[in-house]
């Protein structure tokens, strides 16, 4: 039967199932395939904190959302067009994210009485007309998978585990995507170890694809053309991987050995995993006994002359607090990556949030200023971490790099940088004993010399006690302390002269500025696009350098009548902006553990301007 092909600009698909159903793998496979076809995309994995929650429960539902298109894709989508639900729990927990008229694909075999009960349902939604707003395709995925594997003599359990590939194959058919990328993946992943497993997965993948082709149910398939991305070589990258690459690149460009001290914590652990694989780059990774040991080992590593980093999430950053103060006192380079998650306390380990900003900027005893940067997209984690390393070394200071759970596990196409043209990271260790003073300062940056053990004649002691200016000897004199407080602050302020001016999208002054930081970039930018389409003149400012702020930021903000600051916290950047620039900013704050929805930002802005500016 000939099927119609319709072309779409963009599509959002959400895969949802039990945490044991392999939804993350399914989503990642789909992502890699659409990426390779040149679509722009953005993904959002949304998985439970429990490793293996009981099957069929609502809290055990694992989701993966991908938005891809031929147009600029900024977010994984506020709502989805297609919901693939492998069981009733996945359907009920995700239904609110499906737009009216959207498509549902469910595994009807999983709609058993028991599973309905587990999902808290008294009637079967496939029969009770509650889904009439949507286009429902109930498919016996379990049965069809079993049929596809009938001759292979496999256990029911095993068969059950492959049914996600049926759904994947079907989605490839629906969106006119080829199977080759996933075939290659299956062959490489399982083929070597177990030919039978590989064969089974391939059969199921093809069965899903062929089902779409042959069944009467689907009459239309969709095509999404490649996006108009800048020319060059691309790959797909997740935030944590990009952060790891940023550190390795900085290590190579500076010529310094890379040392990572870390303690596992969701959602930061993947940076440790990635780097521990890169031994051929001379990377030394150290899984410490806790976060305090992790940062302290990194401080020791920095003293000994390595590019030292420590990676963690909010609770771990809290533990590193005292040692960060030591790093400020010792004035040693150190890159700290905080992959923020929902807090306080253990909070929402697998969800995203921006609530560590003030902890990063101010959360230490005493006056302990340091540099803070924030990455704005998964791929941007690379450049942000690279920049953190460059500044840490140039200014002899710890730098905290804020990313978050959404950036860490979200993916997007990345125009692969040319290693040769990355900004240089010059390093000069002190060598000359003549007139050497551990706390003498560079006249421009105020950085002190980096004098590493093993250098003859530069033996010196440093520590957390207040230092005398220049000599670094212990000193408790009141005026010296006041001077050192000022010098440490001034050094961080001088970073502003070394970083670019604040960029903005839209008019340089006027009515409304939307000011964000970090991972809200995509949500705010799409809200801005929407607002412009409704006739509003809006400027978007996304801040990467949070401490110090870019030198033009105050003047820039002063040029707008209304400054709106959307954040996934209760208002943290806004406090810093108000304190520093006396700007009468308005906050938009939603803290659900999820990225901000651009529609909500738009509505908020509309309400603020009361339609007057339209």
């Amino acid at each position, binding site marked *: 039967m000939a099927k119609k092909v319709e072309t779409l600009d963009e599509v959002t698909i959400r895969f949802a199932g039990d945490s044991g159903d392999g939804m993350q793998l399914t989503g990642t496979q789909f992502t890699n395939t659409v990426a390779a076809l040149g679509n722009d995309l953005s993904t959002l994995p949304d998985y439970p904190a429990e490793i293996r929650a009981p099957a069929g429960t609502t809290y055990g539902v694992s989701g993966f959302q991908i938005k891809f298109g031929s147009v600029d894709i900024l977010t994984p989508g506020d709502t989805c067009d297609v919901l693939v639900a492998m069981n009733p729990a996945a359907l009920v927990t995700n239904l609110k994210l499906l737009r009216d008229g959207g498509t549902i694909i469910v595994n009807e075999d999983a709609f058993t009485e028991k599973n309905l009960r587990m999902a808290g349902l008294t009637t079967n939604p496939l029969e009770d007309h509650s889904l009439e707003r949507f286009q429902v395709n109930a498919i016996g995925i379990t049965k069809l998978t079993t049929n596809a594997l009938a001759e292979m003599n496999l256990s029911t359990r095993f068969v059950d585990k492959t049914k996600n590939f049926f759904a994947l194959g079907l989605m490839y058919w629906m969106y006119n995507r080829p199977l080759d990328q996933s075939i290659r993946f299956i062959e490489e992943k399982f083929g070597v170890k177990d030919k039978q497993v590989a064969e089974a997965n391939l059969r199921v993948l093809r069965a899903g694809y062929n089902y779409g082709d042959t069944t009467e149910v689907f009459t239309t398939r969709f095509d999404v053309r490649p996006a108009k991305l800048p020319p060059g070589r691309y*790959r797909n990258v997740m935030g944590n991987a990009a952060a790891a690459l940023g550190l390795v690149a900085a290590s190579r460009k500076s010529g310094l050995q890379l040392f990572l001290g870390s303690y596992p914590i969701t959602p930061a652990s993947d940076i440790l995993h990635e780097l521990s694989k890169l031994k*051929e*780059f001379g990377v030394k990774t150290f899984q410490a006994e806790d976060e305090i040991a992790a940062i302290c080992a990194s401080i020791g*590593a920095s*003293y000994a002359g390595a590019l030292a980093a420590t990676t963690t999430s909010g609770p771990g950053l809290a533990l590193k607090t005292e040692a960060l103060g030591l790093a400020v006192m010792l004035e040693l380079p150190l890159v700290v990556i905080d992959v923020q998650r929902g807090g306080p306390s253990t909070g929402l380990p697998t969800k995203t949030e921006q609530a560590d900003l003030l902890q990063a900027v101010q959360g230490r005893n005493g006056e302990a200023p340091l540099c803070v940067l924030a990455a704005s997209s998964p791929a941007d984690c690379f450049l942000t971490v690279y920049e953190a390393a460059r500044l840490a070394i140039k200014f002899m200071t710890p730098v905290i790099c804020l990313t978050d759970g959404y950036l860490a596990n979200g993916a997007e196409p990345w125009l692969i940088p040319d290693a040769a043209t990355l900004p240089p990271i010059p390093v000069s260790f002190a060598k000359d004993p003549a007139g050497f003073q551990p706390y003498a300062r560079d006249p421009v940056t105020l950085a002190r010399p980096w004098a590493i*053990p093993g250098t003859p004649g530069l033996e010196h002691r440093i*520590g*957390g006690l207040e230092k005398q200016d220049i000599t670094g000897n212990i000193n408790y004199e009141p005026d010296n302390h006041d001077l050192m407080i000022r010098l440490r602050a001034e050094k961080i302020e001088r970073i502003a002269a070394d970083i670019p001016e604040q960029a903005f999208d839209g008019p340089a002054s006027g009515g409304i500025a939307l000011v964000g930081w970090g991972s809200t970039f995509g949500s705010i930018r799409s809200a801005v696009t929407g607002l412009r389409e409704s006739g509003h003149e809006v400027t978007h400012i996304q801040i990467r350098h949070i401490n110090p702020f870019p030198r033009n930021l105050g003047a820039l903000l002063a040029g707008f009548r209304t400054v709106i600051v959307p954040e996934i916290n209760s208002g943290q950047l806004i406090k810093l902006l108000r304190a520093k620039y006396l700007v009468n900013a308005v906050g938009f704050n939603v803290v659900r553990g999820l990225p901000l929805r651009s529609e909500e930002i738009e509505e908020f802005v509309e309400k603020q301007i009361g339609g007057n500016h339209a």
Partner: protein
Amino acid sequence: MPDTAQETPAKLTIKDFQSDQDVRWCPGCGDYSILAQVQRVFPEFPHKREQYVAVSGIGCSSRFPYYLNLYGIHGIHGRAPAIASGVKMVNPSLDVWVATGDGDGLSIGGNHMIHMLRRNLNIKVLLFNNQIYGLTKGQYSPTSVLGQITKSTPAGVIDFPFIPVSLALGAQATFVARAMDRDPKHLQEVVRRAEGHHGAAFVEIYQNCNVFNDGAFFQFTEKETKDDHVVYLEHGKPLVFGKDRTKGIRLNGFRPEAVPLDGGKFSPSDLLVHDEKDSTLAFILANMIHNPDLPRPMGVFLALDHPTYEDQMGDQIARAKSRKGDGDLQKLLNGEETWVIK
């Protein structure tokens, strides 16, 4: 075994290890002796001065690095083993020493201590045990004895103390020793042995805090009582002690007991012979502390040869490089799947 073979460094003297900083310990403090013994033996070691790194936490004892003219970090309370670990991993050719106290190393930093020891980084720990918090002016510590009256325990200590040597043994330390501030010759010898050990070395040093816990160890350090209360451990030799060396330790089952050698009933051949390679024996010796009738063992309890953490870390890197070649940054950035947009 030293980490690096040196091309005969210029002969160093005690002066090379003395810094220009005023020493700020109380007059009469046991820390002075420990500093002096270290400054005396360091010149013997096959390193250039710039290869030593001294790391400490917080406490009177942790002031140590300031008084040595070496590379040093005076860190934060309890974290010296972690800081030292980072230094050592990055540059294994450095000779890294940790100075810590009973509070610094066993209370706030106890976790770092046990993990550093079990990893067997080639780092030497000198733990100044004065059974008190000196710097904060006299609260009890994790080694204070039951009933000890201190500022924070006016009615006496009720928590059971750590035996630092047992703790180190339990943490799988490959070198464990005990020495005393007031026995300089023996302390020097133990420091030499620690230096010579290729792996983590833990040295507990009984140290008199004459201000807040004066005389805590006098039984073991003073002329009148010392001979009957201390037994010096020597590898391959029977455990003999007493003023005229007329007493010995023998094993009755797993239980050590003191026996007279002059009564005709026991001879040196009945005695326990020390074996530094025997970790079971090391535990038995460490536990002698529980029997007040037994002398306190001093010296090297255990010295085992195990691969160090940093050597294995280096091996893994070397193996990866020989298998895959030196990492290529551009290839790494490219990853596995790429596509080109024209």
